[in-house]
């Protein structure tokens, strides 16, 4: 329950962090909030040569309103975003999802980008990013590229990030005035969701629905008309998976129950 030895660096700038990543590649791990990474270190599930601590890099600690999108830097904690005064108005789906992310104590340290970079299939923030059609900003010594959420997260704990790239920021499109819904079922409040469902209503009666905890990454689909029917058919298609917490059949069943409920939430607020 103690990490294996590793070298530690605390860069002062994003450029220094990126230079270290170029040097170490996948032998390095980026430490932001550490709420997923340090448990993996303690349990010796990972064994990096170098830990690059970006938590104190000032330029990565900002929430920037860019007009159409809100850009959240890699060192922004979940509770900092939750306390951002404009969150409810500009990013209502994130505002609905964030209270489900871990606990008060872990949100104090855990970052928004870290959760998305970790890419747990049942995590709330990757789901919110996918349903929002958000983007991930990847920076390396080679330059910068921006990937849509759908291309970034590929499978369970697997993303399109190259070994020398830093998840420098994520961008959530502003959803002011859009109706949203979010709900999940977990064994204990704040635990990983067994099933999490997010929805956002568009003006043309289309509802974009996303589900986490049923496949290797958040699945997103636009739904028109009969919600229960569409969700039921989708649940069958997705199959789901079995683990310690739930069978695949329970996952499908939870999705069938939660889906229409969350869609109604989104419509009610639209």
């Amino acid at each position, binding site marked *: 329950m103690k990490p294996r*030895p590793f070298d530690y660096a*605390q860069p002062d700038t994003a450029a220094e962090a990126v230079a270290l990543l170029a040097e170490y590649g996948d032998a390095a791990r980026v430490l932001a909030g550490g709420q997923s990474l340090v448990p993996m270190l303690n349990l010796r599930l990972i064994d990096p040569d170098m830990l690059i601590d970006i938590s104190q890099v000032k330029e990565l600690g900002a929430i920037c309103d860019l007009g159409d999108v809100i850009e959240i830097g890699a060192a922004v904690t979940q509770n900092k975003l939750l306390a951002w005064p404009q969150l409810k108005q500009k990013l209502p789906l994130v505002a609905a999802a964030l209270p489900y992310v871990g606990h008060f104590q872990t949100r*104090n340290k855990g970052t928004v980008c870290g959760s998305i970079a970790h890419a747990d299939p049942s995590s709330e923030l990757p789901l919110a990013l996918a349903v929002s059609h958000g983007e991930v900003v990847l920076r390396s010594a080679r330059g910068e590229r921006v990937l849509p959420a759908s291309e970034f997260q590929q499978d369970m704990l697997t993303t399109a990030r190259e070994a020398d790239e830093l998840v420098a920021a994520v961008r959530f499109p502003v959803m002011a005035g859009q109706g949203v819904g979010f709900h999940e079922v977990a064994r204990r409040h704040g635990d990983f969701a067994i099933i999490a469902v997010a929805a956002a209503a568009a003006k043309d009666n289309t509802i974009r629905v996303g589900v986490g905890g049923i496949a290797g990454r958040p699945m997103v689909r636009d739904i028109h008309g009969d919600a229960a029917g569409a969700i039921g058919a989708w649940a069958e298609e997705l199959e789901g998976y079995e683990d310690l917490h739930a069978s695949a059949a329970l996952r499908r069943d939870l999705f069938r129950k939660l889906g229409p409920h969350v869609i109604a939430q989104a419509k009610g607020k639209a």
Partner: protein
Amino acid sequence: MRRVDRNDRPRVTLMLNGKRLSAEAEPRMLLSDFLRHALGATGTHVGCEHGICGCCTVLIDGVAQRSCLTLAVQAEGREVTTVESLAAADGALNPLQQAFRNNHALQCGFCTPGILMSFTDYLRRNPKPSTEQIRDVLSGHICRCTGYAGIVKAVEEAAKSAP
């Protein structure tokens, strides 16, 4: 840029409950172990060591977080506040601690230091929380003997007695 080799044991200096203290720590040393083994401050308890149980919760620069998910080297120059800071020098309990005693909010007491530190931070941000909000914060802790009803009542009493 600060760099620490895995074999280095630099001195880490921090403010612990208002006192400037330092000791050696290799990069992989957790803050929870640093507090207990290097500084001898054993009020902070260690349960699961992966952030689930909440026993080891301390304040870093006033913010409640898991000391088992923080490296000692990350606490360099920071202000760390632990359960030892709560009671007065003569041992008089602070209002939150007294409310825990009044409401039988602890039995074995293993989880209590972390819970006290969580609510020390939370009640500063939200001095008059609802029962639901208290339960939400408490969900970040596991108690295996007393149960949660007394803890919720204690926090409610502490909040009520605060100005």
